[in-house]
Each structure stands twice: as C-alpha cells, then as structure tokens.
C-alpha cells in the first residue's frame, strides 16, 4: 500500500497538501508525487531509523512529571509540511511588521507610556500584567533591542487564512528541532527536498550569534557572549547545548557567573573573564535574586544592576512578558496602527477580554462555543476547550472567570488546518491538525525571519492540542523558494 492511498481529508479544515478535489495543491505537485510513490513498509522503515538516530544522538527533552529524569525524543513525522513561496512572502512581511510594533510597544511601556495615556491600550491591563516589571521603567537595554528572539505561533483557518495565535517574546524554544528535522529530511528524502526547492534553515545559529554580537556594549570582535541554561534537568536542555555548540559559545549556569563593579564575569580555570552578552534560557524571575526573588538562591546577584548600567546585554530583555500577555494580544493590531500608521498585514483570532464587562458577559454565556485561556499559563495548560468540555468543567471555569476576570481571555475555536501525517497503526497517512512557529531574530538592524519554522502536529486523532507535553509532535517545515 502507498502512504496516501487511503487518505481522506478532514471535513471543515484546510488541508495543507491537497486541494479539495483530492489532487495536490498546484505549488506542491512535484514533491507530492515523490511522497505518493512511497510504500507503507518503506516509510515505516525510514521512520524507525530516524527515531533511533535521534535517540542515540540524545536529541531528547526531559519529562517534568517524571522524577527519574526520563528523557524522550520529541515525536515527529517524516512527511513535511510545505509552505508555498507566495504564502511565505505575505507571512514574512506580516511578522516583521508585528515585531516592529511590539518592540516599539515595549520601549513605550518601559518609557513614556504614551499608548496608555492616549488610551489605545487600557493602562490597567498593562500594569496588571504578570510580566510587567515596573522597576525596569527607564532602563534602556544595551544595543537597544528587547525582543532578540521571538517565536510567533500561527494557525490557518478553514479558508486557508493565516492567523496569529500567540506571540512568544520571552524564551521561545523549539528551533533546534527545526534544524534537526531538516538534517533528517536531507538524509532520508534528498530527492523530494530537491524537487520542492526549499529554503535552508541551518544558518540560523550563525545568524543568532551575529545578532548577539550586534547588541554587545563593546565592539563585536571583543565580545564574549554566553548561553545561560538552568541546567540538564530543564526540559529544553538539549536545545541549550545544541545552540551553544552550533554557535561555539560557552554554556554557563548561574553559579558560573558573578557581578563586580556592575560588570558580569564568568569563573574560569584561568580566573575571571568579562561577559558582554547573555543569551539566557532561564526564566527572568531567576535571573537576579536581588531584584526578583529574595527567597531564591538561584540566579546571579547584581545582574540587573549590570544590565541597567548598560554593561551587559540580556537576550531576551527582562520585562517582555507584558507584550506577549494573552490579555494584551487583542491590542496588537491597534499597536501596529498606532506606532506604524499601517494596517496589520496578518489576521489574528477574535478575542474576548474578560476584564471588559460586555466581553465577560458574552463569554460566560457561550462557554460551550469558546476556548478559554488563562493569560499567565502556557504549554496548553490552564485552558478550557469549551466545545469538548463537560458541563462540570465549564462551571468550574465560569466561577474562575467571575472571580479573577483579568486572568482570562476567550476565543472562538478555530478549526486548525490539517496536514497528512504518518500514523503507524494504519500503515498510512491521515490528516492531523497543525500550527506553525516561525522564529524571528532582531539585531540592531531590525528583524529577520528564518524561512521555515516549527510545525507542531496534534498526533492524537481529533485533538487540537499540539504541545509536546500533551501528545504533540513536529514536522519539518519546507518553505519553497520563489
């Protein structure tokens, strides 16, 4: 049997590979032919080989719920998700525009707060956001950049329109899988990759290193940049080591660093060495116990003083959480209009802000049609999938919303697009829902979008949750050249 032989599209969704008549979409004819030739047995063999390679290389994530420190490979599917050149051009433009506006918003929030005075974003939503850091007001980051690395989560509705679902402006993860998945595609499907004419993704670490040096308080050639990890027990530890290796930077933990005279140093076997740029993969509340958590022994005492003095650049800047707060998200299109005097190039998902009386009233009365999200949770936690929830679960959320309306937003459930995905039990491909997370690097010269991204797929039949912690997997994302 061939892998697409019994493929049936998922009603009411946009199929990423096939047109409604069942033939491959025009831009993908050649590459779809290559995959259509594969038999189930060939495919199963290739998939097993690829998974073993990942396990041996230690391309794994740690499972938090397992105290023995179990490591798993991130499940993935060898059938790529392909994006046509014209689609990508639109996306790229929209992402650059959005990142520019979000950066200006953060400068404003930690500066004059004009957008709040002009009442384009409610001041109480900004100052009430969990990620807002009033102590950082007036602090200008070295290099001027705040959102050095961003991951923008996009979905595609049944008409095929791209919509932004979420911005990740703190420590977005997953880019190592983008690069590793491509290594595997190259090895296993060189001909299909060639037929599809795909943008490369392996130069991401080089661009990342250049970006980090570009924001240094000293000359790029005199800069010491490091990657700061919470350590091997962190779920994304593989990625931290991967990026450090690919960039040739040292991977440090907080106890390796110390601050003296508002300068940061790393303890080495040859004595202290000055550090100028920190790509931190730790949560900002663990950066500096002097500022964020007096009770914590984690972090580098004095780091924020060095940062405020402009002696070290921290990527991403602390305080960004106010801009990717789920309750601020509905205002991003207004930010684009306000700061750039442009219309947003990307759609997003209509959102009800429970803090507003009218919105809240609507939400509690229509819980069976809405997806409710806690604004300060991520990873698919703290969510109510209204249409699939039980009456008891809906009652529980109704009470929570009434108690702390600032904590909740609601959105209509969007039918995510589906992509053909290898299902071992069936010995063939079946449609599974996907999203897309492109990665954006912003240096002093402005944003750059990696032509590719992490396609996450809900492997469980009928599921909408693509998070790796909840049964999600990934696919290689092939962005076609024009």
């Amino acid at each position: 049997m061939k892998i697409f032989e019994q493929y049936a599209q998922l009603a009411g969704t946009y199929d990423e590979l096939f047109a409604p008549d069942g033939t491959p979409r025009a831009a993908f004819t050649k590459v779809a032919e290559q995959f259509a030739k594969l038999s189930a047995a060939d495919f199963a063999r290739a998939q097993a080989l690829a998974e073993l390679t990942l396990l041996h290389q230690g391309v794994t994530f740690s499972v938090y719920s397992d105290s023995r420190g179990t490591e798993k490979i991130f499940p993935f599917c060898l059938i790529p998700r392909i994006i046509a050149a014209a689609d990508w051009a639109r996306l790229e433009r929209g992402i650059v525009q959005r990142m520019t506006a979000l950066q200006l918003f953060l400068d404003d929030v930690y500066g004059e707060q004009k957008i709040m005075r002009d009442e384009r974003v409610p001041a109480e939503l900004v100052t009430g956001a969990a990620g807002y850091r009033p102590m950082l007001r007036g602090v200008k980051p070295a290099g001027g950049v705040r959102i050095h690395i961003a991951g923008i989560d996009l979905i595609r509705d049944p008409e095929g329109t791209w919509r932004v679902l979420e911005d990740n402006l703190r420590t977005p993860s997953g880019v190592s899988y983008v690069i590793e998945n491509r290594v595997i595609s190259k090895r296993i499907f060189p001909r299909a990759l060639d037929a599809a004419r795909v943008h490369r993704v392996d130069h991401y670490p080089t661009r990342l290193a250049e970006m980090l040096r570009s924001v240094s308080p000293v000359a790029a050639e005199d800069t010491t940049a490091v990657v700061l990890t919470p350590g091997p027990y962190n779920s994304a530890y593989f990625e931290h080591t991967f990026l450090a290796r690919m960039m040739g930077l040292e991977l440090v933990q907080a106890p390796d660093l110390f601050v003296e005279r508002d300068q940061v140093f790393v303890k080495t076997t040859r004595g202290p060495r000055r550090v100028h740029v920190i790509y931190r993969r730790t949560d900002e509340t663990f950066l500096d116990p002097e500022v964020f958590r007096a009770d914590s022994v984690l972090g580098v005492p004095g780091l924020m003083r060095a940062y405020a003095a402009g002696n070290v650049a921290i990527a991403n800047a602390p305080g960004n959480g106010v801009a990717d707060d789920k309750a601020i998200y509905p205002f991003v299109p207004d930010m684009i209009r306000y700061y750039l005097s442009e219309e947003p190039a990307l759609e997003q998902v209509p959102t009800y802000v429970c803090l507003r009386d009218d919105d809240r009233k609507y939400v509690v009365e229509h819980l069976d049609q809405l997806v409710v999200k806690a604004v300060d949770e991520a990873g698919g936690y703290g969510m109510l999938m209204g249409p699939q929830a039980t009456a008891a679960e809906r009652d529980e959320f109704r009470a929570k919303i009434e108690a702390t309306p600032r904590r909740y937003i609601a959105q209509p459930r969007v039918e995510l697009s589906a992509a053909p995905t290898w299902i071992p039990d069936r010995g063939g491909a079946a449609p599974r829902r996907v999203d897309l997370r492109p990665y954006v690097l912003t240096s002093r010269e402005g944003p750059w979008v990696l032509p590719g991204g992490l396609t996450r797929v809900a492997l469980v039949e009928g599921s909408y949750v693509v998070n790796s912690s909840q049964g999600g997997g990934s696919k290689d994302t092939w962005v076609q050249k024009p």
Partner: protein
Amino acid sequence: MISRVADHCFWFGRYVERAEATARLLAATQSLALDAELEPQACWRPVVVVSGEEEQFVEKHGAEWGDGERVQDFMAWDADSSVSILRSIRGARWNARAIREVVSLEAWETINELHLYLGHDDAKTEFRDHKEAFYKRVRSSTQLALGLLRSTMLHDDALDFIWLGVLLERTSQTARILDVHHHAFTAPKRHEVVETALWLSLLRSLSGFEPFMKQNQGKVTSDAVARFLIGEERFPRSIAYCVGSSHDRLRRIRPPEERSLPGGLTLERLRVLDDFVTSRRRGPESGETVHELLTHVVDETSSICDSLGKELLGYG
C-alpha cells in the same frame, strides 16, 4: 575555561576510564579462573579488594565470594558500588550531558549508546549468556570514545582536563591492582606455574601482556612485572607513564611560569610525585617495599585530585 565545565570534563574522563578498567579486570579474571586451577575466592576476592569495595560487598553478600557470578554481578551492575560498570557509565554520561557543547558529537553518541544499551534487556541477556562479549562491548565503546575524543575534539583545555581525569584514574587503578596482586601472589609460596599464570593474568588485565613479553623475552617474575608496571615509561598504563603524562597535561593547563594563575599548589605536588616515580623506575629503593611505594602513589594521587578540585574545579 569555566571551572564547572572543567570539573565535568575531569570526571567524564575518570568515569570512562573506570568503566573500561572494571570491564578489563573482570574479563581477565574470568579467563584466569578458567585456567589456573585456583580456588574461586583466590581469583575473585582481589577484584573487589582492588576496587576498594570489599566493605560494600561484604555488607551486602557476606564474605560469600561464590564462583565468580556474585562478584561479577556486583562489579557490573551494582548501582551503589562506585566502580561498577553501570554506575561508571551513568556517571560518564551524566557528566558528558552536562557539557554537551564541549564533548564532540561522535564521542557523546558513543557513550550515550553504551548507556542506552546498559539500560536495555539485551545487555542483561548478553551478560548472563556471554560475559566475554559483554565486557568486550563495554571496552570497545569506552576505548572508541577515548579515541574519538582525541581525533574529533579541539586539543585545548577541555581535552586536557578529560585526559587528566583519565590519567589520574589510571594511575591509581594500576597502583591498586599491582599492590593487591603483589601482596596476594607473593605471600604464600605457590607453585611456579600457578604464580606465572597469576602474573600473566594481571598483565592481561592491564593490556600489558605483549608489551611486557617484548621487554622481558618471556621471563616472568614478580619483580620484573612490578618493575614494568611501575617504571616502563613507554607503556601507557604504567605508573611512570600516567604520572608523567598527567604532569604534562597540567603544565599545559597551568604553565609553571604563569605564577598568577590558580593551580600552583597542585602543579607542584604533581611535579614532586613525578620525580618520586621517576627515581624508582628500576623498582623500590632499598628498605622500601613495593607495597609502601604503591601506597604512596595512591595516597598522593588522591591528594592531588582534592587539591585540583579546590584550585581549578571550583569546589568552594
């Protein structure tokens, strides 16, 4: 380099070397037990004593040395034993994982694969049915990893620290194994044939059989073996080679002329040990027993490791 990273490098080297040493010792002893018509206890007890694990073993199993199965099981799989193959490979892998950006991908993969293998039922089956093949696999993988480190990594401080770990571990392994055997084999007078078999087994467990034969034209005596394992600078498991090479490595990490850098005390201590071993290339000085000489080497090596930890590896 970062002190914490140096610490992981050092221990990565020590654990890989330790796993290999344990596998080699068990394989050689198994072969001895088949040939030498000795009481099982005379073969297997020294294996545990050499490792400094006699107390642990007796606590768990009493002084029941058994037919070798029990000792081998303990030395291969006991997670509480600081020298077991399982624990050494776990330790090596844990340290390597903490410095994934330092260890080359090839070397990491080799240790990670061995770690995954040991966690799999296949390894238990192989151990039960074909011990020789099991030990071979552990040795091949660890030796491959050590070779890959040299052929795929930048020859800088990180490799120097890994190698320093390997060499200091090997110094004390050789000293202990020679000490225990020298004591056990020479105390009660045995038949010459049996004694020769014991010495040959010892040489095999240190991969030193052929090199020794080349140097001594087949003449095996306890003094000749001791002299070879202590003083033969061209043999990479002799004490003279290991101490001399550790000294070279540490001089690269911390050049003697750069007095402002940390590490001066450790370097001086290692220099003194190197001189001590060099002066005994032809065996112990008069009035000094082999046992005294080896005890000094073991104690000094351990002190050097402590001092290294304090000065360079960030132990407070």
